[in-house]
């Protein structure tokens, strides 16, 4: 595997460091080692090694079915890896004895389908997890909720219900909900794939803001412009392995591998882009539906 990727300069990290030692500042925020994941006979991840430094923004790209969403979902153990290890902030997530709920509090996740709680108002979507999971009192939770709604530009929707919001607004509330928990890491699973094209920009703007604030972010996306402009590093996956990884200027503008070139040409060619995009979405949904059963 060609993961001899260029680490982003401000986050030098070495493979030899012990990831479970949080006192070592050079430790990566996320470390994935030899990760395998199978669904029955279908091996979706076939040996993934990846490190993401503190404050680094990594975009994971690749064709549908390449395993990129599964990789993301293994980081907070929404999917249980078949083999391999995942460390987040020095804690081994894959350790059977780990308090997974405690680990997940430090990892925010944003889903393709938003997954806001439809029976709760926007504010309650933000306050309920803070109160039930972090034990914050009502006043503090409300304050944090208001601050984060302000950050995503939706303060005026505080009392609205999710069903009355546009997809883009719902996704920004979902981001605010994750941020209200004060996460160290944010995972984004195709956050704009379910949105109408004209609503994508607002969500990407919020993500850009987070990146500028120094949030550690792992983003599975088809938005090449976002990846090129915001990512410190782009990881291209195909068929359950990382084919190549590096700065966007290298992977997107000047890919070394034929598979990357093929994927990008289909994605960037306007005539082919629509076809690829539609197929991608449907394929991903189908895969998730299967897992659901």
């Amino acid at each position: 595997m060609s993961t001899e990727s260029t680490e982003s300069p401000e986050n030098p990290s070495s493979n030899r460091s012990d990831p479970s030692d949080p006192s070592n500042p050079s430790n990566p925020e996320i470390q994935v080692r030899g990760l395998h994941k199978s669904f029955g006979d279908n091996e979706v991840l076939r040996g993934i090694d990846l490190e993401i430094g503190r404050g680094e923004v990594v975009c994971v790209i690749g064709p549908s079915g390449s395993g990129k969403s599964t990789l993301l979902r293994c980081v907070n153990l929404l999917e249980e890896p078949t083999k391999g290890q995942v460390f987040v902030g020095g804690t081994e997530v894959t350790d059977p004895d780990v308090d997974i709920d405690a680990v997940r509090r430090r990892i925010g996740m944003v889903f393709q389908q938003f997954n806001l709680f439809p029976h709760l108002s926007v504010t309650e979507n933000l306050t309920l997890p803070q109160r039930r999971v972090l034990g914050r009192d009502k006043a503090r939770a409300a304050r944090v909720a208001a601050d984060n709604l302000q950050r995503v530009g939706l303060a005026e929707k505080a009392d609205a219900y999710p069903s009355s919001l546009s997809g883009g607004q719902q996704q920004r509330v979902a981001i605010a909900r994750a941020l209200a928990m004060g996460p160290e890491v944010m995972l984004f699973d195709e956050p704009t794939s379910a949105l109408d094209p004209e609503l994508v920009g607002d969500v990407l703007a919020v993500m850009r803001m987070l990146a500028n604030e120094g949030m550690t972010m792992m983003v599975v996306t088809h938005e090449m412009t976002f990846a090129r402009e915001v990512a410190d590093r782009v990881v291209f996956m195909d068929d359950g392995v990382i084919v190549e990884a590096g700065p966007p200027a290298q992977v997107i503008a000047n890919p070394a591998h034929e598979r990357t070139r093929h994927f990008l040409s289909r994605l960037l060619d306007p005539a082919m882009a629509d076809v690829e995009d539609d197929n991608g979405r449907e394929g991903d949904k189908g895969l998730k539906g299967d897992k659901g059963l």
Partner: protein
Amino acid sequence: MSGEAEADTQVRIQPRKSGLTRRQKRAVSRGVQYVVFVAALVAIGASADWGQLQNQFAQADLAKQLFPDIITLALRNTVLYTLSGFVFGLVLGVVIALMRLSSVGPYRWLAGVYIEIFRGLPALLIFVFVGVGVPLAFPGTEIIGGTYGKVALALGLVAAAYMAETIRAGIQAVPKGQTEAARSLGFSHARAMVSIIIPQAFRIVIPPLTNELVLLFKDSSMVLFLGVTLEERELAKFGRDLASQSANSTPILVAGLCYLLVTIPLGFVVRRLEAKAQEATK
């Protein structure tokens, strides 16, 4: 309009076997249905002995004597029995639904057996079992709440089996993404269930649960198999007692009307809730 015109021309083009157009055939068919309907009404009306019926079921002065007790005592007790049974059944139903969805095999198995047994037995048998069987099986123990406790137990045991299946379906109807979102925020499995999934499941199952309430309301009439004091009588027992006292069935008719007084509005509420739920899923 144009479709009908087209159909007419088609009919004319084709050879007419019966000699009737489609419109004429429709009129004849509807006419025959009205004739049958009216004939049936007339036959029943003419053959029934209305005088006897009125004598037996509609004695106005007898009906007057039933008030206010039929409302303040009998209807009140019926409502109390129903509600206590519903609450007990709901709690037990949630527990059984969660057992049915448990990752622990014996829980699933036990819940399945419970549901099959209590859905398969007539409610009447459960009442007899609670009234006679339980005191025999546990001599010296008293069911808390006396008759009310016994009714809550009997009605609840039956209702729980139906409600468990309804609630299970409701929980499974909540999209998987909701659980994932809750878990990714750090909710434990149990907390996610209680705070996120079950509240949404309940919104889905409110119409069928209200329907279950209507069924329980009627089933509460089986209290009369438990043996109750005068003060504990509900609509059916009250109506029957007064009917035999006065050797006239008017109390039964009035008791029946009292049931309808509650069940018809409840049925209306159920249909409204169902329509609203349908609207919400669009």
